[in-house]
């Protein structure tokens, strides 16, 4: 497919949702134009392309906007068929989609709420709930290098961008240890594997800056 493609991504450096799209585009070797958006000051372009949610990421392909990170990932996989992100088998696909929802709907909610609580006791209760949810992912990793098997796939991009390279940084900044080494050996092994993958390494927010950013966001939420 050597036709001229125009791919643009509106994102935010600290957003796991936009980072996972960058990983997917890099995995497929798709050249794209990146536009950094500001949380506080949304560009007229973003507001025009995503009037409903006014959120990143927005992928624009040949002028047409696609929204919602899971929808964008599926679109990328269906449009550029080499280096597939999703497995071929329908049942395997359903498991990946199921766990991706678990990450972004339950794990994310409980995890971020655990950071937002002012009381240490409340934080610990939510941290425990988060651990329970992550234990389902732990089970999925047994005997595998990645959720995608031998190489990274959809769930690695979703869970990777969200948990080790976003939520854990938030917890670290607060001095909270949620995912303990002895309880989550498969998860820890998986993170080490991820850290060795070029496209993941290139697409995660810089550590120190990110921890600082998460601290700032937590303070903002707690004071609101």
């Amino acid at each position, binding site marked *: 497919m050597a036709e001229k493609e125009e791919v643009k991504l509106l994102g935010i450096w600290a957003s796991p949702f936009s980072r996972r799209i960058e990983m997917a585009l890099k995995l497929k070797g798709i050249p794209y134009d990146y536009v950094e958006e500001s949380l506080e000051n949304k560009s007229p372009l973003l507001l025009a392309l995503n009037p*409903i949610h006014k959120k990143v990421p927005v992928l624009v*392909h040949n002028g*047409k906007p*696609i*929204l*919602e990170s*899971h*929808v*964008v990932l*599926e*679109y990328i996989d*269906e*449009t550029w068929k080499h280096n597939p992100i999703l497995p071929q088998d*329908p*049942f395997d*696909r*359903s498991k990946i*989609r*199921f766990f991706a*929802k*678990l990450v972004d709907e339950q794990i994310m909610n409980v995890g971020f709420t655990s950071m937002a609580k002012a009381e240490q006791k409340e934080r610990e209760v939510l941290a425990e709930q988060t651990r329970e949810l992550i234990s*389902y992912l732990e089970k999925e990793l047994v005997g595998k290098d990645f959720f995608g098997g031998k190489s990274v796939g959809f769930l690695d991009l979703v869970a990777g961008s969200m948990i080790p390279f976003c939520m854990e940084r938030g917890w670290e900044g607060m001095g909270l240890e949620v995912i303990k080494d002895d309880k989550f050996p498969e998860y820890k092994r998986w993170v080490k594997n991820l850290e060795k993958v070029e496209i993941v390494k290139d697409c995660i927010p810089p550590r120190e800056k990110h921890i600082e950013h998460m601290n700032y966001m937590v303070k903002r939420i707690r004071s609101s």
Partner: protein
Amino acid sequence: MAESRSEEVKLLGMWVSPFSRRIEIALTLKGVPYEFSEQDITNKSSLLLQLNPVHKMIPVLVHNGKPISESLVILEYIDDTWPNNPILPQDPYDRAMARFWAKFVDQQIYVAAMKMVGKIGEERDAAVEATRDLLKLLEKELVGKDFLGGTSLGFVDIVATLVAFWLMRTDEIIGVKIVPVEMFPEIHRWVKNLLQNDVVKNCIPPEDEHLKYIKARMDSLKIKSV
């Protein structure tokens, strides 16, 4: 490309659940025979707990012994497995739009609608207003179309039956006409189109029984209907 191998398809669901009914619509549209197992979520069966240990919720589709949970995931599985009478469009961009709107129904409209329940006075009015604001977006999508899927029923229509046959059946318990025809003529026209489809008509809870159930449930939860 309908496979004629022996298939064992079972659906754990509930007659009043929009999430369970949408799976029945999809299976019926594709002519997939299935065994339905009515579940009681107030007294969860060991089968349900075994097949969906993470969420312990219906619907769960079991195909040749393998369980699939989460209604949108199940719908995609059904379309992937039985490609006849496709539910999702073929074109990647159109598929992206369908997935976006389906998420919008389940994560925005449904969540806003739930906030209307059990509220009275100003709080109730604000919740109704918020729900209507979201419904206006669905209204816009229907202009010039018979269905959200275009000329025929598709993925978003199946998911949005939640609006047509659940949200639009809660007027009595909320105490206000949530989706008045003057404000939402396209939605009303779309509901009529849905009801002309035999599969939809036969796969939704019968209105009288459904309304009785909703009222009884609200009464039992001691929620005021204004």
